[in-house]
């Protein structure tokens, strides 16, 4: 199946658009091999932004998506879900990080735009080779380990235990309570800590 790639260049408000000429990047993307359409949009991660992608997938028969926006470490999962909800395999998507690794770190607007183009071109070339992948599932062991029995450990352990699940609460010291046990009254209510 020939790739029909949709490229979405995010303004991220002014976060990206103030430094990078997003229209120019979209225009550049249109000329890349396999690209069916390229658009720039205010906030691609917003609901209307995601709807735009979903509609394009259906109406324009897109089969690969490139999103030039923030770091994939932030929104890769978000956009994978967008694809899934449009019945496209979530792994047929690539992100070009033109915010954290381009707009925010480059002084010169022209050079930033050039770099953004390069990052988009890399993503477009890569996405053409993307294959649908199946996520496998494994059973979830319902037991939980909590390491450290201070305030946080005790609180978390009690919450989970309350739901009827088993918690192993491991504490290095001979008794629990951590630093909290050493305190008398605590601010601002001045009640006792235990």
């Amino acid at each position: 199946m020939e790739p029909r790639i949709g490229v979405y260049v995010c303004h991220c408000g002014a976060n990206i658009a103030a430094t990078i000429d997003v229209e120019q990047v979209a225009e550049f993307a249109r000329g890349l091999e396999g690209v069916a359409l390229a658009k720039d949009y205010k906030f691609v991660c917003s609901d209307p932004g995601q709807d735009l992608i979903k509609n394009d997938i259906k109406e324009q028969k897109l089969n690969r998506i490139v999103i030039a926006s923030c770091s994939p470490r932030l929104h890769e999962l978000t956009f994978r879900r967008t694809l899934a909800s449009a019945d496209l395999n979530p792994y047929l998507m690539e992100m070009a990080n033109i915010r954290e690794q381009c707009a925010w770190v480059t002084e010169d607007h022209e050079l930033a735009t050039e770099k953004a183009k390069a990052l988009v071109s890399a993503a477009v070339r890569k996405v053409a080779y993307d294959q649908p992948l199946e996520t496998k599932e494994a059973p979830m062991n319902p037991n939980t380990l909590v390491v450290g029995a201070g305030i946080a450990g005790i609180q978390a352990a009690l919450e989970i235990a309350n739901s009827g699940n088993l918690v192993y609460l491991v504490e290095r010291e001979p008794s629990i309570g951590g630093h909290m046990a050493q305190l008398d009254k605590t601010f601002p209510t001045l009640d006792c800590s235990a």
Partner: protein
Amino acid sequence: MASVRSDENIELMTYSEVVDVSGYVGNFKVKIRKNPRYVDEDKCTGCGVCQEKCPFKADNEFDAGMGQRKAIYTPFPQAVPNVPVIDRDVCAYFLKGKCQACEKFCEANAIDFEQTEKFVEVDVGSIIITTGFDSFDPSVIAPYGYGRYDNVYSGLQFERMSNASGPTDGKLQLKDGSQPKSVAILHCVGSRDINYHEYCSRVCCMYSLKFSHIIGEKIPDAEIYQLYIDLRCFGKGYEEFYNRIQEEGVNFVRGRAAEVTDLAETADEEGKLIVLCEDTLIGRQRRIPVDMVVLSTGLEPRADAGETAKMFSLSRSADGFFLEKHPKLDPVATMTDGVFIAGCCQGPKDIPDTVAQASAAAARVLSMISKGKVEIEAAISVVDEEICSGCKTCLDLCPYGAITFDEEKSVAFINEALCKGCGTCVAACPSGAIIGKHFTTEQILAQIEGVLV
């Protein structure tokens, strides 16, 4: 704390440490070492006779080194579990082979000098790290004289001193037993200081205010000084608490203390500790003579946070605390799926924030439990059996032992459940037989060409 003990869904292991973690989200295997208490937890009734009879003492770490405890001890009266432990480094039986007083007097026969460390293995689906913080050791700041002057105390020491079950039964007193008539509380000790910790420890402002309230309650005519850089009373009800302390008549001096000295220059400084600062709102140096100095010591990462991080594959931020997946959007998750963090191990925070974060971590775990299954990384590696030459190069490289060798077919095989998709084997395979899904060689080459346009 008592509810932890009584909760049948909590298996409490005190005096125990995690020594090894393997597996992956949904299916971790954890090895735990139970250190010997030399007291049988099941038999001990917590009567306390052993501690009364034990003739040997050591500094009480629970009281921040101020009081003493016995060689067999429970750290404090309401300890959970209420089972003592024997300190091998102090106990005469372990040092010289005699005494055994505790054993003789224990009616429950709970003393067991033969106990050894035990290892248990548990299977869990998720892990929450709540290892807390260490209190900053102020003795490294020489000008404050902690450890040099008797009446300079750390924040934790003051806590213990003001605690009814502490070494002075809650009495605020100087080393000579007398009552202080004036106290200076020094903020930001070890915090907001590039020489020690650059970050703000977040709790010291408020506990310093609390200290002045406690002093005022116990010694109504005491003169109290707060030496601060900025007062950060940002929480709900905190600014109101500050107002209350102001009304109580505490002296607020805006200036960081530079030094504590006992070198008197005038008669009314004789025998006192003098705090040197600039009252920055006046623009003058001030010498404030007081009986007692309390150092509002900051919070720092546990000394062994590095080892903990390694064991659970956590990252640490520049300040040494464990790194959350995202500071705003994912403050309880870590880079390792199924491992969460909460409380001060992630960064200094107060009790309300700690409880909130711990509840959040519990919620994350519960949502995984209620789903009942976990998704495994799809971008993993597979071996193309047609191409694999059976050279076994990849076998030793895999950090997870996910690659086995199929002797019959003479090819490598990757266990999908164990593979995490790092791609080290892909890079190493001399015949190019391993495909790193989603990061295939042709994909990366395409990217290289792409960035070089």
